[in-house]
């Protein structure tokens, strides 16, 4: 039977940043623990990278910032609906300022549009603690101050939760170098959880270290096979590394989970590289719906058509985009030169035909000469 002291030991371990200990103690008594302490144990599991001991769904009651941390599991699993639902409900339900600010921070790093929609309702929340203060600065996009306060705070209190906050701020502000360094030191200390591994892969990928990003993403994919971000970004790594068939498998999986023009565009790139120009053209056509790909997809369709021998259609398309949707001088010049090359290729006469024409002309000349000479001789 669990005693009050055992419960205190778990909460104390968590408070003192002995996260592994909190998780370990929680495992021993898990079934007897009250719901609120189970939540602490599951948050500890998340922070140290352990699998949950119980059902997370049953623990989440949208009351504290722990619910938001637990929702990050849904994020890693690729269940974005459940992830956002938990964040939004917790922000709305909770009476606690820190929890609301924490939820808003999570929303801001994951979906700026959703954040912008609701932030005005909460912008007057008063910061009462140092943590609330840097969260508030972050929410109002004062990132410099947010990082400054959070960094000073970690020098007094390097609790895993605060480290997570800083990592999230770096993730949002794109400080890949700092984020990679932080993840590296966590790895050295044996504290690199799956969420931090995800951030590590992000920082490697974004700074062009594709081999390192690939190694981490491959491991993460084993654990989270339904996370579309992992599938898609790993597929892009494979394209960059020339592993095209491996990439194809992942993109097909990603497409089943999430519909997006980005996936179609990348599939277009992939099939083009595989020499399957018809399929590539189809995929580029599907990605036309997005503003982001309007120019590049149209251009790529023309290049596919050129490879398919459809020169007239390719030229027509290139002229159309040159005259309507070119976006800068470089593209204009490029389009002009491409049109010229396609025209030349399109007009190219096969070599056997050239030889035949030369033969016909030369024999024509010979016969003509023969007749002329014969005629002259005849006159004489």
């Amino acid at each position: 039977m669990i005693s009050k002291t055992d419960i205190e030991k778990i909460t104390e371990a968590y408070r003192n940043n002995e996260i592994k200990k909190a998780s370990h103690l929680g495992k021993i008594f898990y079934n007897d623990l009250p719901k609120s302490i189970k939540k602490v144990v599951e948050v500890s599991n998340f922070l140290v990278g352990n699998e949950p001991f119980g059902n997370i769904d049953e623990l989440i009651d949208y009351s504290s910032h722990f619910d938001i941390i637990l929702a990050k599991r849904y994020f890693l699993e690729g269940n974005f609906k459940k992830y956002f639902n938990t964040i939004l409900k917790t922000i709305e339900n909770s009476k606690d300022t820190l929890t609301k600010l924490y939820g808003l921070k999570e929303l801001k790093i994951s979906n700026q549009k959703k954040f912008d929609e609701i932030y005005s309702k909460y912008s007057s929340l008063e910061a009462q603690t140092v943590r609330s203060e840097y969260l508030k600065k972050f929410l109002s996009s004062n990132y410099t101050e947010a990082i400054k306060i959070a960094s000073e705070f970690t020098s007094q209190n390097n609790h895993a939760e605060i480290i997570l906050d800083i990592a999230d701020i770096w993730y949002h502000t794109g400080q890949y170098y700092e984020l990679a360094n932080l993840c590296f030191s966590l790895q050295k200390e044996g504290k690199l959880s799956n969420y931090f591994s995800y951030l590590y892969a992000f920082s490697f990928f974004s700074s062009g270290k594709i081999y390192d990003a690939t190694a981490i993403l491959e491991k993460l994919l084993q654990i989270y096979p339904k996370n579309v971000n992992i599938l898609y970004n790993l597929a892009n790594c494979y394209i960059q590394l020339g592993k095209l068939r491996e990439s194809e498998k992942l993109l097909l999986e990603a497409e089943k989970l999430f519909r997006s023009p980005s996936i179609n565009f990348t599939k277009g790139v992939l099939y083009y590289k595989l020499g399957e120009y018809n399929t590539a053209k189809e995929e580029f056509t599907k990605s036309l719906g997005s503003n982001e790909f309007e120019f590049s997809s149209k251009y790529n369709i023309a290049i596919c058509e050129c490879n398919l021998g459809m020169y007239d259609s390719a030229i027509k398309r290139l002229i159309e985009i040159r005259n309507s949707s070119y976006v800068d001088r470089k593209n204009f010049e490029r389009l002009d030169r491409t049109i010229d090359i396609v025209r030349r290729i399109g007009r190219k006469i096969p070599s056997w035909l050239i030889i035949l024409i030369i033969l016909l002309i030369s024999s024509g000349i010979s016969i003509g000469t023969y007749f002329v000479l014969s005629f002259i001789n005849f006159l004489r």
Partner: protein
Amino acid sequence: MEKARMMLNSIISEPDKVGKTMLIKYYISEYRATNPIFLAQLFKLILKYIYENEDFELFEVIFENFSQELGVYGYESQEELNNLISYLIQGNYLEMIKKTLQVIPRTGNQRTLTLLKELIQNLEKSKYIDTKLLYDLKKSTFDLKTNIENAKKGLHLLNIIEPESTVRWKKFEDEVNE
């Protein structure tokens, strides 16, 4: 160019790396689809500013956080990149040269190739011991050489465009609307 100059002034007025990064990120998202020429001009001015003003903080921001974007929008910055590399070689800033290597194959030109070859020769002569840097330098030089040769053949003109999206980490949660 005036617009890019104004953007650069705003960037250098930001007091730290985070502020600079966020502002550049904003400009990229704003002009990526509508007017990327601003971005090409901006990167050109930034590189020039770095070596003229020895702004190492801005160097870190660009080469740590925007190396992929510089590869995409750096097509107007070849001379500035070469001047920057020359400056770094003269100052023997090898750690910083290391950070530029990723951008070089996509942005460099014949002069970059010459600069790198000279640097490799000098390092080998001086029996420089960082084999990782030497390897990276040689790889970058090889990739640049291949790209220059392909460009001469006009091969790139009949190739598809892979915009920035294929080198940018995708966050699909951003696209969830419900």
